[in-house]
């Protein structure tokens, strides 16, 4: 039996034994995890089957095709980033403890990376972790943290040696968000919602057993997370017409009164771009060996700019209707604006962040240029200098 057949057979039997329509979400996800369909490339016993990562799409097609939940939407940082990072860098005991609650969404995850002084230059971050016996004491401020207010655990990157050049003085931890030294404050954004947070760390304590990788190796570990983040954000769907282009296609179908030849011309080219991006994701997954490398940045880069263009098209199509927006009043987290149809305006505003979050388009183009094409690096002011001597502000 090929690996593909094994994945197909396993997924079909999970769906048969735990029909998504009648099985509680947690129980269904638990069954998927135990069957090795959570992250198919992980080892058996850790939510995987030890097969190629490209086969995850095969499993997802069957599980989600039968109405099962998409774990990425339920716990994006947990499923997309924490899982692969924990598997790659945690001890087997810690991985065994963390992965199942992550996948079944008992524990939501967030990512404590960006800081007010460290955006694109993530390795310049200033949050300090100081060792105190078997624990680490962490103090600093993080920002743009999605889901921090719901999260039980966080992926944390902190500075353990300020006298090393910036990349070498970092260490990576798993933080318990219920620690009394953690304070989460919502951060209101241009859509009116507070999807992100600021997180203040005041002598938060982390057991050394929850360190991922060696002391000083945090950047190396963070690369696992970031590559998975970009693949997850940009990985897209292999279903034609899903994602943001689907919003535009639905609007086109449902509102014949809005149609003009100019909008039709723009939309077909947006569709072509979206479908090319979708097929490129499919092709990369088919070609992926053990892990998707920097080529995953292509999907993130394209997806972000495409989202913005698609939502801009929707605003143009809506015309004067697009000038109304009822989304600034406080409302439950993640819910659309109260007036029917105005989620398009919210999505349009929200898409502005797409080319910033998870790696700016500028950083991604640099990664493509240097890592995939082999172009030489830019001149840098901080190379080789101790972090403590690099100008900041």
């Amino acid at each position, binding site marked *: 039996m090929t690996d593909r057949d094994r994945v197909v057979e396993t997924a079909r039997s999970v769906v048969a034994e735990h029909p998504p329509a009648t099985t509680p979400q947690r129980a269904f996800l638990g069954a998927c995890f135990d069957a090795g369909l959570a992250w198919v490339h992980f080892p058996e016993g850790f939510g995987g089957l030890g097969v190629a990562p490209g086969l995850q799409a095969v499993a997802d097609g069957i599980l989600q095709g039968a109405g099962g939940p998409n774990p990425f939407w339920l716990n994006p940082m947990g499923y997309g980033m924490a899982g692969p990072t924990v598997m790659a860098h945690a001890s087997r005991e810690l991985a065994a403890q963390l992965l199942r609650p992550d996948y079944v969404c008992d524990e939501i995850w967030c990512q404590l990376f960006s800081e007010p002084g460290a955006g694109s230059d993530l390795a310049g971050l200033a949050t300090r972790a100081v060792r105190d016996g078997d624990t680490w004491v962490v103090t600093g401020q993080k920002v743009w943290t999605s889901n921090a207010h719901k999260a039980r655990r966080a992926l944390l990157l902190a500075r353990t040696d300020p006298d090393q050049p910036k990349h070498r003085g970092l260490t990576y931890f798993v933080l318990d968000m219920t620690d009394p030294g953690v304070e989460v404050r919502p951060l209101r954004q241009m859509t009116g919602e507070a999807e992100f947070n600021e997180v203040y760390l005041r002598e938060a304590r982390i057991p050394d057993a929850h360190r991922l990788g060696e002391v000083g190796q945090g950047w190396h570990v963070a690369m696992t997370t970031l590559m998975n983040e970009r693949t997850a954000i940009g990985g897209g769907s292999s279903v034609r017409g*899903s994602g943001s282009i*689907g919003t535009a296609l639905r609007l086109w179908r449902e509102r014949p009164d809005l149609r003009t030849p100019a909008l039709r011309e723009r939309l077909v*080219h947006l569709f072509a771009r979206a479908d090319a991006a979708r097929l*490129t994701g499919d092709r990369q997954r*088919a070609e992926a060996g053990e892990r998707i490398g920097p080529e995953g940045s292509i999907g993130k880069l394209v997806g972000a700019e495409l989202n913005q263009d698609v939502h801009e098209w929707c605003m143009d199509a809506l015309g004067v209707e697009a000038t109304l927006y009822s989304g600034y009043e406080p409302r439950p987290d993640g819910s659309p604006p109260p007036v029917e149809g105005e989620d398009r305006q919210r999505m349009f505003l929200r898409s502005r962040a797409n080319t910033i979050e998870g790696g700016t388009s500028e950083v991604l183009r640099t990664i*493509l*240029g240097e890592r995939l*094409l082999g172009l*030489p690096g830019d001149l840098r002011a901080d190379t080789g200098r101790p972090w403590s001597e690099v100008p900041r502000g």
Partner: protein
Amino acid sequence: MVEFEFTPEQRDLRAVAREFCTERFAGPEVRRLVETPDGFDREVWRRLGRDVGLLGLALPEELGGAGAGLVDLALVAEEFGRAVAPAPLVGTVALAATALRLAGDDGTAEELLPAIAEGEAVVALAATDDRGAWAPAQPTVRATRTDSGWRLTGEQAHVLDGAAADAVLVLATTETGTGLFAVDGAADGLTREPLSVLDLTRRLARLRYADVPARAVGEPGQAATAVAGARDVAAVVLAAEAVGGAQRLLDMSVEYARTRLQFGRAIGSFQAVKHRCADMLVDVEHARSVAYHAAWAQDAGTDDPRVAADLATTVTAEAYLRVAKNTVQVHGGIGFTWEHPTHLYYKRAVGDAALLGGRAAAAERLAAAVLDGPALGGVA
């Protein structure tokens, strides 16, 4: 057949095609060929067919082909495109051979297809009107039945490989509709005027028919289907050629950006140049995905073949043009010179965008399929 997964045999095929193109279509050779009357080397073409077996890949085995599919042909086309090879691949192997295969005329197919596969016959598909418009509803060549057989009268422009062809497959008007007719390249009454072309690597000709003896090919009702099917195959071949050409341009641009020094630095270290190269990479990757997808759609039914072909034309034409423009820009002044290869590719991209009805028509068909009708499978 899993989409995007090449078999070991297909990888070998690509290697063979690349080796052949590297050897036979090196830069100086391409420049020599575009100066010749036919625009290609018949002996090289024969070797491609008879010795290397690349021309009959997508033809049925009983007609001298290899019985492989369009995926295999696309891999070969990609290597031709990389070399910007002047050869009648699109005109003969994609257009004419497919039209012959679909026309429903076993006799003519059995006569011409093995000769195409062997590289012995160059055949053009003349499916334009007298102004070069592709697949007109009312062809400007009229076929008349006489006591001594069919005779053609009229004119066609922009016929790909029309001047060099040993035989021409003509889309003509009859009393009962449109039909396909085979004409000998040396037939009495046929005048062939090579046109001065912008893309030097693809030859176009004006064909004038003055009472030219012709043979009807297939049933008249089949002609439009055969021509449309030929276009779908040729669109995939063109798309695959664009992938190879764009990849070659990207490789050249990156190499230049790594080695060209200004202000004491490689220009590729400047973000303005680096990011332009990154955008070229995205274009190449997207082009590759839609081109391969269109090939698989025809071979394995992974998508509606016509939607996939029109998607491939829309995306690859734009990508190839943009990559070629960016290549000129990255190279600076040297990229604008006659001696530098970039202009051959740039003009290829410009010309391809107008072939087979052009990329605007492909986008229009795509819009009709995706936006005007009922929702496509999977489309919201």
